[in-house]
């Protein structure tokens, strides 16, 4: 009798371990292996220098589509949003102004800097799926271009930051009010090791290229 109980327990234990292993495998398979960016122009266009080490996420799994639901109350979605004015210039030589005075910014004449960086303050352990931006693009020749990065350092030792481009997208056309998004691969947020940020490149000066807002979409982790 005792032997049969022990046997049953062992079977359940084995099944539980097997199921856990399956879950772990399916989670780990979502981690993408980034490739090293060797194209110098690609690095320069993202505001890096040619000597910088930059990786790029490819073959990203497609996360669930952005959900247009009202996320008040219980929801597995988390949104973190920032207005354009909350971003920081890559160097202090970014001259900017606003048209509506409501957090929107555009690059004004006078400065030599074209990039602004926005730190995304994201919760640990959540799955980072999408970045969406809003703005205005009524410039036929130039665009707003967005680069989403994770930049990581060793946990407990000195080192040089490694950056991975999780996604990039641009405002296209010149229709005016504009919004676009990019899949960032469903990476798991780890603030212990990494920062997550969005760089915006303003290709031209003037209020025809305006940044309104950037939003990150994440989902609550289901199991660990």
């Amino acid at each position, binding site marked *: 009798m005792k032997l049969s109980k022990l046997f049953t327990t062992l079977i359940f234990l084995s099944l539980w371990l097997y199921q856990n292993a399956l879950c772990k495998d399916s989670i780990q398979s979502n981690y993408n292996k980034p490739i090293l960016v060797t194209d110098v122009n690609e690095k320069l266009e993202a505001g890096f220098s040619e000597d910088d080490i930059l990786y790029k996420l490819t073959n990203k799994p497609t996360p669930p589509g952005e959900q247009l639901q009202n996320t008040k109350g219980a929801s597995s979605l988390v949104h973190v949003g920032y207005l354009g004015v909350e971003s920081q210039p890559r160097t202090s030589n970014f001259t900017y102004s606003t048209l509506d005075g409501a957090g929107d910014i555009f690059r004004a004449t006078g400065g030599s800097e074209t990039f602004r960086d926005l730190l995304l303050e994201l919760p640990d352990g959540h799955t980072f799926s999408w970045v969406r931006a809003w703005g205005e693009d009524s410039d036929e020749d130039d665009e707003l271009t967005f680069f989403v990065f994770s930049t990581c350092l060793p946990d407990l030792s000195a080192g040089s*930051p490694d950056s991975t481009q999780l996604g990039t997208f641009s405002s296209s056309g010149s229709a005016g009010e504009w919004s676009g998004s990019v899949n960032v691969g469903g990476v798991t947020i780890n603030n212990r090791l990494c920062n997550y940020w969005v760089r915006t490149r303003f290709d031209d000066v003037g209020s025809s290229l305006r940044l309104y807002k950037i939003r990150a979409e994440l989902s609550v982790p289901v199991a660990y």
Partner: protein
Amino acid sequence: MDYLKVLIFTIIFCLISASQAMTLEEAGGKVGDKRIIPEFPESKLMTPKEYKETTDTKGVILIPGKRFYSATGVDFDPRKSGFDGGYANYAARTCTSSSTEQFIDHEIKLLNGDILSYIDVWGRDSNVNENLSLFLYKSCSPYLSAGALDVDFFHGNEMSTSTGDFIFSTKPNKGFSNIESTCKIMARIRFGDYDPVNYCDGATDIRLYRLRAEIREGDLIFENSLEEY
């Protein structure tokens, strides 16, 4: 004899006051702000090895009751607009020689009752003469009335290295209350030695990569976060 005692006491008091004012000035504060820096007897600079031994949970992203907040160098705000910030491409921040300001600030996002366990700073300093410094301060306004900001610089350290890439770890281990309702906890970085004339001149090769706060969430059992700060 009594006059001599009074004179000696006065001299000592003046020296202490002067040193406090000087120290606060070096932290970008002002005379009248609280605390002589550093005054954190239970805090010590920790080597990465010591740190690892006490808190190693490597590979674990979610730790119950613990979370991390981190910011890039670029996300710090200059104390004054005279700061001319440069960059090192990966959202790291430098200070150019044309700057007329050498301090940058960033809020450490805490919730009521949180305990600020560790602060880690990554950067690059190959400069044998100048260093990057870290200050932590609490700035509070009255809850429902007018009044000046009540500022307390509760931590300050030169993160002194000239070895290139570095990590600096320190352990404030302090609980905080009245966050958001009246108080903010801020981190301040100074590029180079305090120099109100030449500012960052001579220290333009120093980089701030990242600041990370390890936060222990308050436990209801310890309503005052063990020690209310």
